[in-house]
């Protein structure tokens, strides 16, 4: 009896925690399907006849569509380039215990981004690159490379070294062992790290706020500019915010197990 009671209480507590975490996001998504009259009427809860009008308005807005495209483009290019340089580096650090070099990751995480933005702006302005996709990709890579390094160092350390040593015995060079043995085994880790890197690029606000221009600005900046219209078009704003959050929600549902492993990588060891 006592045991059943505890189980029930625990289930209740877990449900409450989940509701508190999920409800604000559910409320946002619901608002995206409401008319502007319904959005501003708090007595309209989660039961109403949904409208797609807000999404129609938002998707007819060239600025929003282009910003979403820009976010996707910058996210994909910066993630692919980051993985290309960070995965081999992580292997080198993990295999050869070069942990002092790994501390650069920590430095990159500590330094306030604004202290880098002014010099970047100055430097890239000299090169005529401010406002270009190049400078956005480079700035986002500055976040992605340390992130992928951080996750993948732990991943390679977890792979048994015997497999690569067996490769050496069979005549593979060290690089061959990396390419033919370690890299395929690291595919799930690389995928996880890349998805996370893409999400952090997709969410990045401050870099694009300074370094992008009208044509290259990403969705968080566009969304920010739309806040001033909030009082007149909550529905449209919520639809735009929902579109922005959609890829993240999909990733959270489909990849939860891997993403949790990636996010918590490195935290459980000293």
């Amino acid at each position, binding site marked *: 009896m006592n045991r059943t009671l505890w189980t029930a209480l625990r289930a209740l507590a*877990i449900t409450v925690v989940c509701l508190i975490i999920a409800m*604000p996001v559910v409320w946002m998504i619901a608002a995206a399907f409401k008319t502007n009259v319904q959005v501003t009427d708090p007595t309209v809860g989660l039961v109403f006849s949904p409208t797609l009008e807000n999404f129609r308005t938002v998707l007819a807005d060239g600025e929003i569509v282009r910003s979403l495209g820009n976010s996707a483009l910058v996210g994909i290019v910066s993630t692919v380039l980051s993985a290309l340089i960070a995965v081999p580096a992580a292997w080198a650090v993990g295999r050869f215990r070069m942990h002092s070099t790994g501390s650069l990751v920590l430095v990159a995480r500590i330094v306030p981004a604004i202290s880098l933005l002014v010099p970047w702006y100055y430097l890239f302005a000299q090169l005529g690159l401010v406002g270009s996709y190049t400078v956005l990709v480079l700035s986002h890579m500055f976040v992605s490379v340390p992130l992928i390094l951080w996750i993948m160092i732990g991943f390679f350390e977890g792979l048994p070294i015997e497999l690569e040593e067996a490769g050496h015995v069979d005549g593979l060079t060290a690089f061959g062992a990396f390419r033919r043995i370690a890299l395929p085994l690291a595919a799930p880790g690389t995928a996880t790290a890349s998805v996370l890197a893409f999400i952090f690029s997709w*969410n990045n606000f401050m870099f694009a706020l300074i370094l992008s221009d009208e044509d290259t600005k990403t969705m968080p900046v566009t*969304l920010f500019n739309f806040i001033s219209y909030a009082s007149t078009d909550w529905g449209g*704003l*919520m639809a735009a915010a929902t579109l922005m959050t959609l890829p993240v929600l999909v990733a959270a549902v489909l990849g939860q197990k891997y993403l949790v492993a990636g996010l918590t990588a490195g935290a459980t060891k000293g």
Partner: protein
Amino acid sequence: MSGFDRSHRRLRWLMLAPALGFVGLMIIFPLLFTLHLSFTDAFGAVNAGKGYDGGQNYLDALGDGRRFWPAVWRTVYFTVGAVVIETILGLAIAMLLRKPFRGMRVVRSVLMVPLLATPVAIGILWLLILDPTNGIANHLLGALGVPPQEFLGSVSQSLPVLMLIDVWQWTPMMALLLLAGLSTLPEEPEEAARVDGATSWQRFRHVILPGLWTTLMTALVLRAVDALKTFDILYATKGPGGGSDFEVETLNVYAYGLTFDYQEYGLAAAVLVLFTLFIVGVVVLLRRRSREASA
């Protein structure tokens, strides 16, 4: 050294060089440049400074009781408040989820939503929920008999409200990190304590908590660094200067405003150097505490 080892050595530097070179280039020049700027009176343009000013910016910042010190205190208030609540709640949630149950996958997905969602979008959704006249928050409070609140429209409530939004957003991360830490603990010591008749609180306090200490401190450092640097949600909800009365202007928001709204590059650089030293100090302090405790 055999030829094989030599080729290994060359290879590992080859593999490391692009990533290390990239991060190094993106960080070393900017840091030196910021340090240089902090000693000039650059205003309007970064190269407008007329030589070194002997640390005048630092004196100006440290002697500024109107913007700088209030920003320091807001940063401390926001960070300490958020991180302490997140740690306690995160630990409680991790303990709650520790034993396997049906539906763990769903719960894990839910936990990931706030920390992966775009901060600007999160700011916007809370603006709707907390809207003083039309928001659901005041509607619900009204049902409980609480008078309507101004929330983000009020000078005194904005910072605590944003701190609580941070708690909503980042407690799940804390819970996930601690859950990962709990899963690595061996079961034997806990079983032994149970056999010896320890209560569940004693087992938590004297067996689980010490075992979890390293993870807890690592999570604390990571979270504190990010909380100190919080920008997106403050700027998205309150705009430049952290509101009309600078009510949520933390050091990061202040440095941003000095740089990009006022072009006070010299002073901004000095504030950023002080801010960076502050963060480094916090990290060093927390890491030393964690090492002392585990020794």
